[in-house]
């Protein structure tokens, strides 16, 4: 029982180190499985040779040695790194900006098409406070950033990424949202930036990320 607990702890520790090093989860999962099988096969072979189970387990552990060597070897292979780690700058630096733009334009068109604004006579000017526009505006400013930030934050936590990347992502999302201006007949991402909105979003998202990260670290080996 004690041996099993030590092995489970060692496996969890190894998985954590590999994930933090950027190794793709599928390689981590498979390596753990192969190592477990390898150990079991070795123990079975030693038992066949006449060693009692505990001695066989100790001998197998000694022969297999420390996991640090395997960790170092795997981390030294750039090909085993996940795409998320390799293209973090794209995912956390560029994609949020693009996603903010796409979500905003999509929301705007939904409002225009389903809000019946196409049916308005040409001489009627759409007012800022008219109909669904304030709701759409609030959605684009406050809810859409969450739709982008939450999956990115979860991905960063699951892949044990350096906090630098989620922070970059949050800053990009907050600035993009702060720079988003919704007007009756157009939307725009550009200056002037609403500093208060940017700051509020950035602080809220960073606090949520920090809390989730702290919670995860309590569970990590």
């Amino acid at each position, binding site marked *: 029982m004690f041996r099993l607990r030590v092995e489970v702890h060692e496996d969890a520790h190894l998985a954590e180190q590999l994930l933090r090093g950027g190794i793709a989860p599928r*390689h981590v999962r*498979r*390596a753990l*499985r*192969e*190592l477990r*099988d*390898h150990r079991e*096969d*070795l123990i079975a072979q030693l038992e066949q040779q006449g060693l009692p189970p505990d001695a066989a387990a100790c001998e197998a552990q000694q022969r*297999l*040695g420390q996991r640090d*060597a*395997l960790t*170092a*070897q*795997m981390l*030294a*292979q750039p*090909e*085993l790194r996940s795409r998320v780690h390799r293209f973090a700058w794209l995912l956390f630096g560029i994609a949020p900006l693009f996603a903010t733009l796409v979500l905003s334009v999509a929301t705007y068109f939904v409002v225009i098409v389903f809000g019946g604004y196409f049916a308005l006579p040409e001489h009627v000017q759409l007012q800022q406070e008219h109909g669904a526009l304030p709701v759409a505006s609030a959605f684009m400013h406050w809810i859409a950033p969450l739709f982008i930030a939450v999956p990115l934050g979860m991905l960063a936590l699951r892949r044990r990424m350096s906090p630098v990347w989620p922070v970059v992502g949050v800053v990009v999302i907050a600035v993009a949202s702060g720079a988003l201006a919704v007007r009756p007949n157009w939307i725009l991402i550009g200056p002037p930036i609403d500093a208060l909105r940017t700051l509020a979003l950035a602080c809220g998202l960073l606090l949520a990320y920090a809390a989730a990260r702290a919670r995860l670290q309590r569970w990590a080996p």
Partner: protein
Amino acid sequence: MTHPDRALIAGVPELLLLQLLAQRPMYGYELAKAVRVVSQDVITLGESVLYPTLHVLEQRGLLRTRERKVDGRARIYYEPTAKGVKRLAALTAEWRRISLGVENVLAGAGHV
């Protein structure tokens, strides 16, 4: 002047694994044992070299994996792809060329 593959020495595990797997698909432990037995205990591939190398070869498209159940246990078997077979031929030729060169030097060292 010849330019041997720089990765030749670092590629010894790759050569051994591809050669053994070209004979029949094997799983990790079986491969480690095969390397030791076939090399007559001269070469031992520890798990810290074996598994990262297998994963890298698979990632490069030189090996593919298949899961098979043997004696009630699911095993991950490795086998070379067509690209892996080509790579094996290239590595083998390179190894033979280098080893012949080294042998010649060793044999003729006294005549210089």
